[in-house]
């Protein structure tokens, strides 16, 4: 497949590696085709520019919502796409290939829909899910706090019942979509210390007690707003409690494994992009009278990159298939997240190396991808947390 990538005004013509996909249905083939069409038409041409300006592409996300790409893993009866994770993750991968901020937005939004979809009452599902899954309303997920992300059970934000409302006070940190989201999932303490005292509320963004702070000046994904959110006596109707008091930690933990697979898929997409770009460059760039891909030093680097990207994809989809089959997949999700994001970091770094000086300047996207890859090793549980999950599973086994 021949592709032209336009990025920062630099056009690289080359042969993009065609990813061999084994999709489970004709429906999935059509979905991936639609995803590529929209990603090529709407994401790829904007990524570099929006990232440089730090602008969040809310309208592009709406286009994805209208196309039905924002609720893919959720049941059709609530407006979702009824797709297995195996397919949903490949959609995320295709989006991340063109623009990580958008794939992350889809993944975070999907996570934000999860509490109501999985633990909400019938009334809550009917009321919220059509607009959540249709992409009319954008979600954010408020779990981490300034003093603790990995140790979620010790979170401090509290909600106190007052009549038919909860009054929420506290500070949440690293909130993707802060200030642009239409609704926030808030994990807060309604009872005893530890995991059993945590509840989940779904609040509208136009609540005067919900105050997004100044955007963090992040190293990458500069198009995606991330900030602390101060909850200052935010009054949230009691019927916005999801799954009952004390169920919050259960909700957060059961969403974690799915979220990790989402990040793994984003990492695979980013890796593939960096690999394809480096291959294309190495075939085009002549030194000493021949394309540099012909030098073993470069060719073997690319071979290792390609092998790791394939392995990362396979590991991620294998974990997704376990999830789809209803089997335990916590350890496999942690392995996929760990391996795919470490791969993304290495492949993006090597892509910069292969482009040499050109890799280090913003005229080519590889330096941006290298900055973006770093985030993936940190979010949804640092890769040290993933190793902890895996080793505990091994110890238990």
């Amino acid at each position, binding site marked *: 497949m021949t592709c032209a990538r336009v990025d920062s005004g630099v056009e690289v013509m080359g042969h993009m590696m065609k990813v061999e996909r084994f999709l489970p249905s004709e*429906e999935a083939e*059509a*979905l991936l085709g*639609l995803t590529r*069409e*929209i990603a090529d*038409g709407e994401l790829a041409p904007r990524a570099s520019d929006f990232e440089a300006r730090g602008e969040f592409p809310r309208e592009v996300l709406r*286009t994805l919502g*209208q*196309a*039905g*790409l924002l609720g*893919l893993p959720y049941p059709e009866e609530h407006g979702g*796409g009824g797709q297995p994770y195996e397919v949903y993750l490949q959609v995320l991968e295709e989006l991340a290939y063109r623009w990580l901020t958008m794939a992350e937005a889809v993944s975070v939004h999907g996570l934000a829909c999860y509490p109501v979809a999985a633990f909400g009452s019938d009334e809550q599902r009917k009321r919220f899910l059509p607009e959540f899954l249709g992409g009319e309303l954008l979600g954010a997920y408020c779990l981490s706090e300034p003093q603790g992300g990995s140790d979620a059970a010790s979170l401090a934000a509290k909600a106190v019942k007052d009549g038919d409302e909860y009054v929420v006070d506290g500070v949440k940190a690293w909130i993707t979509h802060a200030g642009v989201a239409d609704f926030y999932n808030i994990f807060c303490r309604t009872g005893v210390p530890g995991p059993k005292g945590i509840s989940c509320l779904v609040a509208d963004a136009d609540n005067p007690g919900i105050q997004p702070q100044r955007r963090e000046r992040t190293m990458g994904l500069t198009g995606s707003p991330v900030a602390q959110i101060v909850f200052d006596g935010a009054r949230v109707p009691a019927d916005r409690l999801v799954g009952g008091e004390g169920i919050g930690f259960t909700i957060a933990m059961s969403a974690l494994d799915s979220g990790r697979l989402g990040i793994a898929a984003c990492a695979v997409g980013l890796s593939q992009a960096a690999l394809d770009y480096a291959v294309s460059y190495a075939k085009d760039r002549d030194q000493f009278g021949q394309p540099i891909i012909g030098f073993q030093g470069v060719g073997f680097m690319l071979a290792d990159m390609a092998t790791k990207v394939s392995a990362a994809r396979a590991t991620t989809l294998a974990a997704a298939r376990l999830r789809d089959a209803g089997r335990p997949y916590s350890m496999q999700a942690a392995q996929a997240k760990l391996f795919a994001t470490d791969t993304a970091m290495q492949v993006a770094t090597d892509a910069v190396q292969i482009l040499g000086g050109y890799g280090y300047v913003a005229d080519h996207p590889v330096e941006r991808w290298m900055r973006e890859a770093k985030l993936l090793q940190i979010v949804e549980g640092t890769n040290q947390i993933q190793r902890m999950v895996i080793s505990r599973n091994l110890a238990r086994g």
Partner: protein
Amino acid sequence: MKIVVLVKQVPDSGEERTLRADDKTVDRDAATKRMNELDEHAIEEALKLAEANGGEVTLLTMGPGDATDTIRKALSMGPDKAVHVSDDALHGSCAIATSKVLAAALGKLEWDLVLCGAESTDGGVQALPHMLAERLGVGAVTGARKVTVEGATVTVERQTDEGYEVLQTEGPAIVSVWDTINEPRYPSFKLIMAAKKKPVESFALADLGVSADEVGLANATSQVLEFAPKPPRQAGVKITDEGEGGAKLVEYLASEKFV
């Protein structure tokens, strides 16, 4: 309001296209096939009008059997159903014969408005809407960048080199559109799946009461006599600066009428 949109499957204009050596018609098998780009704008406009006024959108395609790919793709944008006119005898038909066939097909359908792209990227004749209007005895307002329908009155802003003209006709009418009229929507996942189940009615020439000796290459009113491949790109002109490089450069640009 019932709207019919004419949709044509064409060779992708972004690729190298060629004519067949045997009969000098467009080599449709050599290229990637896709929906004529302007037709997407016609569909978008039809869907908008139907959404605003209520109604139904039907696609009408004349083309070989594999044009069903384009029909499904077009249906996935949202139209309700499609009609596919297909017959081996149609191969190589000229614009006049095409208009005869499409007029016959339109005669079998109920419609208040026919929308189409202002031209197709393969033929580029731009005359089909007028031919159809003549055959059907309705008004044709072409080259629209804006369409409004109030009751039976169809008003268009017709795009010109200098600006636009406002034209009005009473429906039923035929309107062709340029790409400035709107931004076509993407299909949605649900509509793609739904499109597989939407009705596509097939007509052969006999169903339309058109005889095979009125259409096809043998009866075409225009003919390709000969063709040649595009000459290969010439090497550029290199001007070496030996003091008077600037002057030589201007001389060259002037000779090519750039300055």
